[in-house]
C-alpha cells in the first residue's frame, strides 16, 4: 500500500494526482487544487490532464484501514480494484460505481465540483429532464448558503439563471430543451 503523501506544491493537502512535469518523465505529486492551478497555466484540457495524470482516489482515511492491506476491495462484477483504476485511469464497469460509490463520489467532486447528476435521463425515466426542477435547485442553493459554501451557491445561482433563460428562450422559439 502507498504511504500517505503530501502535495509537493503547497505542502498541506494530501497529494491526489501525479503529473509529468517534463518530457524526461519527472513526476510531481500534487493535490487537486494545485494540480488545477498548474493545469490552468498550461493550455492542456482538464481531461487530457487527468488522463496523463495517474489518478489516486484513496482518501487519507481509506489508507488507514488495515484490512485493506490484505484484501483490497474489488468490484463484484468486473474485479477492478482501486489500484487497477489508478493504473488504468478508467473505471471498469457500471457496477464499479456502486462498489466504489464513496471513493468515486469524492473523486467526481474533485473533478467536477459536484457528484450529483442533474441533467437528462434515459427516455423511459425522462421526466425531470424536460422540465428542469428549478425548485429543487433553489433548495440546494439555500442549503449551500446555509453551509456557507459560497462557491457552490454561486454555481447553483448561475445554473438557475441559465435554466430560466433557457426556458424562456425555448418557449419563445417553441424548441424543447431537455
Amino acid at each position: 500500500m502507498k504511504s500517505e503523501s503530501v502535495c509537493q506544491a503547497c505542502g498541506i493537502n494530501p497529494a491526489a494526482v501525479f503529473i509529468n512535469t517534463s518530457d524526461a518523465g519527472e513526476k510531481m505529486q500534487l493535490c487537486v487544487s494545485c494540480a488545477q492551478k498548474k493545469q490552468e497555466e498550461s493550455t492542456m484540457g482538464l481531461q487530457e490532464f487527468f488522463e496523463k495524470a495517474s489518478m489516486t482516489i484513496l482518501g487519507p482515511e481509506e489508507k488507514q484501514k488495515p484490512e485493506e492491506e490484505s484484501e483490497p476491495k474489488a468490484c463484484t462484477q468486473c474485479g477492478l480494484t482501486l489500484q487497477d483504476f489508478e493504473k488504468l485511469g478508467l473505471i471498469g464497469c457500471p457496477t464499479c460505481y456502486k462498489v466504489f460509490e464513496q471513493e468515486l463520489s469524492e473523486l467526481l467532486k474533485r473533478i467536477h465540483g459536484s457528484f450529483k447528476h442533474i441533467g437528462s435521463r434515459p427516455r423511459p425515466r425522462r421526466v425531470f429532464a424536460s422540465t428542469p426542477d428549478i425548485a429543487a435547485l433553489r433548495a440546494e442553493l439555500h442549503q449551500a448558503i446555509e453551509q456557507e459554501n459560497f462557491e457552490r451557491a454561486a454555481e447553483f445561482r448561475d445554473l438557475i439563471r441559465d435554466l430560466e433563460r433557457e426556458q424562456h428562450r425555448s418557449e419563445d422559439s417553441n424548441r424543447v430543451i431537455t
Partner: protein
Amino acid sequence: MKRTIKKNPAEAEPARQLALHVDTVIHQTPFWASHAGDQDDIILSTRIRLARNLAGIPFPTIARREELDTVVERIGNACKSIRMLQPALTVDIRQCKTLISKALVERRLISPVFAESSSAGIAVIDESEQLSIMVNEEDHLRLQSIQPGLSLQEAWRQISRLDDELSEQVEYAFSDKFGYLTACPTNTGTGMRASILIHLPALSILEQVDQAIKELAPSELAIRGFYGEGTDIIGNIYQVSNQLTLGRTEAAIISRLEVIAYKFLDLERNARDKLLHIHRVRLEDEVFRALGILQAARVLSSAELMKHLSMVRLGNELNLIQEIDHRILNELMIFTQPAHLQLLHENITDPESRDVLRARLVREKLAG
C-alpha cells in the same frame, strides 16, 4: 448570404455494402462544410458528443471479446430501425483499411484512437455526416452531431433525439446519483462534450489570442487544436469545449459555452475592425501575400496551406478579395488532408508527391 446549398448525394440502399458507401462519404462535402450556419464567418462548426454505456456490461477497455461483440450487435441492430440514421454507412473498424479510417478521422467522424482499434467496434455514420456513432471506443457508445457555424441548440436537438431513440431500444448504464456512467470519470454525469471550432485570424495578427483565451476561457473550458485533444493549433482554428459534465444540466453547459462563444466573436470582430481601419495596409499585405502563395505554390504542405488559407478566409470575409464561396474554402481544407489526397488520387505514395498534388488542387480552385 453567399453560401450555396448542396443536396447530399443520396444513397438508396441501406448499409452493408461497405466499399460503395465509404466511397460516397469520402467524395462528398459534409453537411457542416456545405451549409450556411449562424456566425459562420468566424465559427466553422459546432459539435456535441454524448458518452453512453450499456447496463450490465463492462466498459470496452476491460470487456471480454464476447461482450464487445454483444455491444456491437445490440447497437448495430438498434441503429437499423432508427430513421435518422437511414441510410447510414456502417464501418467495421477491424476490417477497415488504414487509409479509410484515417480519412474518417480527418472528417472528425471517428477518433484517432478508435481508428487504430483492433477489437470489435463499428462506426455508424448518417449520409450527411451530421450524426455519427462510435461503438466500443472508450465507452460503448459515443454519439456525435456536427453542425455548421454556431448551432449548439440544433446539435443538441439532434443528438438528444438520437439518444432518446437509442435509449428506447437498449438499456443505458445510468444511476440516479451519478447520471450516465462512463469509463472515464471526467465524462460521468451528462457524458456531454460540446465544442465549437472558431477561427481567430485577426486576434492572431494582433497577437491577442493568448490574452483573449486567458480572459475568456475559465478553467472549466478547454482550448484545443483542430482535431481535438492533443493536437496542434493550425490555421488559427481553435476548439473550445466544456470540460465539466457532472452537476450541471446539458442546457446550462450549452448556455455557458454559447456565452463564451459570443465573447470570442466580439473580440475577433473588434480585432477585424481595428485591422480594417487602423492597420489596413498590414492586413491587406497579409491577405494578398497568402493568396499569392496559394495561387502560385508548386509544393504545399498541410500546415502551410492551413496557415495561408486562414488569411484568405479572413480577406474573403472582409471583402478584400474577389469573393470565394465559403464551401470552396471548406472543401480545400477537407480534401487536401493526407489520407483524402491518397484515397482520391492514384499514384500518391509519398509526402512529397502529396504536397505537389495539394499545391496543384489549390491553384486550380483559387485561380486568380
